């Protein structure tokens, strides 16, 4: 009898646990479905847009297209000088914004308390900066870099304007990287009597690399994609730039002009967009690789 009771209660227990498992599985299933469908939607849209660009643009791409200068307002010829200008603008932008951005991010996350007035001021202004429309950056860059500093329409002006634009993205993503470094690192370093400088360079920076990479990827993406800010700063000239002081048309400006301003420019607009996406893949890879190699490995060599 006792035995029987025990068996019965076991059965009951089993039953309830099975019942609970169905209920507890439901959110599990919903969550899995939600995650997969979010990914499917994003991938679907991506494939849709990319297929559209590839379908219209792939036919125009050839070696000549990549190297020749544009002719007849871009309907004929290639985009050689425009690729060079784009890369130069991006280089100037990154050379200025990366040190400035990483420096600010380090200060915000490591050397100021969240409550400090200075830190709050910088963060708030960065948040506001992140939402300033690109065309305002363009007009601002034109007034400050082109006219006030006398740089004129030049790759330099364009790069500097872009660097103002990508700073908030770069800083917030980098800061996020630093914030997530476990506090143990800092304490151990302090206990070992390491200076703040070497703690930063040997420990924190390498550990924050994922955040830095996201900042770089987002920053490069935004910089390469920018149109409105560049029309007023780096300009419209589609000649091969001789120096950073020359005006140079970026790929995104070229795409905008071909698709919105030049009748019959669509084919080359799509082809240029395809090239831009390829450049993006390349620069993203280089940025991640460099960040990993430069910063990530040091934690081992230290």
């Amino acid at each position, binding site marked *: 009898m006792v035995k029987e009771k025990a068996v019965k209660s076991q059965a009951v227990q089993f039953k309830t646990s099975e019942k609970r498992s169905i209920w507890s599985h439901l959110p599990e299933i919903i969550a899995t479905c939600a995650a997969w469908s979010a990914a499917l939607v994003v991938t679907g849209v991506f494939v849709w847009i990319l297929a559209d660009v590839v379908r219209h643009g792939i036919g125009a791409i050839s070696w000549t297209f990549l190297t020749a200068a544009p002719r007849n307002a871009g309907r004929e010829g290639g985009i050689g000088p425009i690729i060079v200008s784009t890369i130069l603008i991006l280089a100037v932008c990154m*050379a200025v914004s990366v040190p400035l951005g990483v420096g600010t991010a380090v200060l915000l996350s490591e050397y100021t308390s969240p409550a400090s007035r200075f830190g709050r001021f910088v963060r708030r202004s960065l948040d506001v900066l992140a939402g300033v429309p690109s065309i305002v950056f363009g007009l601002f860059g034109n007034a400050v870099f082109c*006219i006030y500093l006398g740089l004129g329409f030049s790759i*330099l002006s364009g790069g500097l304007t872009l660097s103002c634009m990508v700073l908030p993205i770069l800083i917030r993503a980098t800061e996020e990287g630093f914030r997530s470094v476990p506090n143990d690192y800092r304490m151990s370093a302090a206990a070992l009597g390491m200076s703040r400088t070497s703690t930063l360079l040997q420990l924190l920076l390498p550990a924050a690399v994922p955040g830095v990479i996201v900042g770089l990827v987002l920053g490069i993406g935004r910089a390469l994609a920018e149109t409105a800010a560049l029309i007023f700063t780096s*300009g*419209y000239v589609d000649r091969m730039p001789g120096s950073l002081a020359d005006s140079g048309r970026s790929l995104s400006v070229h795409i905008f*002009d071909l698709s919105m301003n030049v009748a*019959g420019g669509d084919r080359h607009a799509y082809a240029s967009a395809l090239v831009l996406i390829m450049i993006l893949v390349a620069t993203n890879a280089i940025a991640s690789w460099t960040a990993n190699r430069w910063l990530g490995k040091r934690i081992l060599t230290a």
Partner: protein
Amino acid sequence: MSFRMLFPQSMLWSVVAVFSLACCSCGQSSDTARSQLVLTGSSTVAPLAAEIGKRFEKLHPGVRVDVQTGGSSRGIADARRDLADIGMASRDLKPNENDLLSFTIARDGICVIVHQENPIASLTDQQIIAIYTGDIENWKDVGGPDAEITVVNKAEGRSTLELFLHYFKMENADIQADVVIGDNEQGIKTVAGNVNAIGYVSIGAAEYDAAHGVGIKLLPLGGVAASIENVRSGEFPLARPLNLVMKSEPQGLAKEFIEFARSRDVHDIVEEQYFVPLAD
């Protein structure tokens, strides 16, 4: 240790490099001022001016013609403030701009377009006015299918809008638009993507696109077919000049460039950009 040194140093150098280049450019600009022409202004004129500039550069080795866009108002403002050697404007100068001189280099017509599948073959001026002011809201009222009309208008201040309003004697406040657009191609793409749309754009762009398989149709205006040919002959009633603008009587290189841009030597370029060259 070497790593630690490398990082800040390379940062420092990149900053130094940028600023030294910046200084170079400052010094340079004064030397090259004589052999460089800067044009800014209308995005409609810019592709044409850039192509003319390229040919001008070929004929005058060592000379550089830099063409920048930013809109007619920018062209006029820059010419006034000496920020550019020559401004570009896709409209006539206004009365309060008579301190400037304008030089027409080409002309461009404005025509009404509808979707290719729209059975309407022509509209009278009255019908167009009624459609744009909202008195007619359905295509069936002008002999088309039973569908609501999508009215495509240009943004405030654009010269195409001003000419259109002037021709039809309307005020922008009267227009009941469903879509407001900026550049020509945006208008063409908007109409091509909407069977019930009506809009107005530059004739050159419309003619090119219609001939190259874009789904739009050009409507005649006042009984005159909308074509570059009819703008050239002066028959088409709605046309605008494409102008170069200067603050003072052009001299030196600027004078040469303007004379070149108005000469027969560039007629083929003007036609290539689907504008109408000046009459001889």
